[in-house]
């Protein structure tokens, strides 16, 4: 009993410490003071300021555009890649899996500068395309890694069965293989979005300097000494609420799925 109380309080204490910075910003997002720590009365002014601040709104929109584009490109490229690799000869499979590991294991800064060298050497101007390539390099291996286990779990005969029943190979892939590996594709897509939203280093090295995302905007703001601009406190609250919302939705959905599966087994 004592052990249980001790264990639980350790976990809760650690959670409290971990969330302390974010919670502090959230609390002080409801006051107008310049720095956290001083409370100058309750107000929603920072929220109004935030939505009026064009730089922040643009950075937010840009971040989402990059994440969704990178998500779509990586998911298509990675899913096709995974299916292709799965049916390769063992030797080709080993090589491809090894190559896929490079961006995963590599330090982000090394990946970032290697792309800078590539683009500058070939005279490519930094623009949305170079940024997108950077994000796809960062994320596409994770799609392959998410899809691969689903391919291994799949019954290998169903594709042959579809062909025997008269489907063309493309049709068989589309209506038999893809639905089987859909959960892997989905988790790969979500992972891509997460990594892209969070990224600073690759973005900083592959973007056009006039194009700012949330990360580069906040990083620029920290370069000035002193605390973050107060409007960023309101932004933190909004982002935390969105993340929390998405997590709750996903959690409820997966719980429902599990219930269905259990019933299905009975």
């Amino acid at each position, binding site marked *: 009993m004592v052990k249980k109380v001790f264990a639980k309080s350790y976990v809760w204490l650690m959670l409290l410490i971990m969330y302390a910075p974010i919670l502090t910003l959230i609390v002080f997002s409801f006051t107008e003071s310049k720095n956290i720590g001083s409370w100058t009365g309750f107000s929603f002014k920072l929220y109004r300021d935030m939505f009026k601040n064009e730089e922040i709104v643009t950075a937010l929109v840009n971040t989402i555009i990059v994440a969704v584009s990178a998500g779509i490109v990586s998911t298509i490229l990675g899913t096709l890649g995974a299916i*292709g690799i799965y049916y390769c000869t063992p030797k080709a499979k080993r090589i491809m899996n090894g190559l896929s590991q490079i961006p995963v294991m590599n330090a982000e800064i*090394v990946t970032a*500068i290697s792309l800078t*060298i590539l683009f500058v050497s070939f005279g490519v101007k930094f623009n949305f395309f170079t940024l997108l390539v950077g994000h796809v390099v960062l994320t596409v291996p994770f799609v392959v890694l998410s899809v691969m286990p689903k391919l291994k779990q799949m019954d290998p005969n169903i594709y042959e069965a579809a062909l025997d029943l008269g489907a063309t190979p493309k049709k068989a892939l589309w209506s038999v293989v893809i639905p089987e590996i859909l959960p892997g594709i989905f988790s790969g897509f979500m992972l891509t979005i*997460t990594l892209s939203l969070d990224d600073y280093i690759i973005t900083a090295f592959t973007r056009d300097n006039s194009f700012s995302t949330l990360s580069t905007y906040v990083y620029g703001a920290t370069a000035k000494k002193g605390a973050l601009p107060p409007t960023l406190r309101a932004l933190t609250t909004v982002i935390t609420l969105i993340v929390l919302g998405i997590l709750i939705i996903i959690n409820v959905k997966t719980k429902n799925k599990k219930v269905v599966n259990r019933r299905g087994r009975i």
Partner: protein
Amino acid sequence: MSKIKFQRKHLSIPYAAFLLLFVVLPLILIVYYALTDVNGTISLKNFINFFKDKNKLGLLSFSVIIGVANTVLCLLIGYPIAMILSNRKYNKSMVMVLLFVMPMWINFVLRTAATRDLLYWLGINGGENPYLATMIGMVYNYLPFTILPLYTTMLKMDKSLIEASYDLGAKPYQTFYKTIIPMTMPGIVSAATMVFMPTMSSFVISDIMGERKISLIGNAIQFNFDQSRWHDGSLIALIMLLIIGIITLLTKNIQKEENVRGGLW
């Protein structure tokens, strides 16, 4: 010319081409720049000089020290958390685990800046205590990456072996050292690599938390590229690559969790 028959393996061609163009070729370019000088002549001089330069060796060993310190701290704090979370007596739902991982979804730069502001309020000024502030920032950022692989390994752990160890008369600490630690070794190695290498090469946390007073390998690479010194920057990047390569090879056999970040979804 007859049309080439569609084969499933052909689907990987775009992916393979992408990897060759945007992963392999850029790395070759890094090696090229690292091993040449400004005139374009190939020489190992830069490479050898790096290991003769006291400042650069200092930078390298300092990065290793910070990396090791952060890894040890994260493991010390994270191991008990993962153990408690994976123990059904204390925790039955995924919610607590998700709570520990959730900060990963809030923008990394924003999170780090928030930590800096809180420390500032508490009287720990990054300008005056760059080391302390940077270490705190590092632990904050990498703790979730430690907890997750440890937690997944512990869930799969065969609990009956722990009971067997007690039945055979082992004391709690003996059980811990001789049964639990070896069984969770894949998770420990996985967590350690997830923390150690990014810590060494990160420059954002040391920049924000230490108010640009601390330099790690990552800072050095970034600085050289900011100053357009590609040859020097590439050389440090190549050394970083070698370190990563060696660690990956060394841990390949122990580490079975292939996709730690993927476990999130």
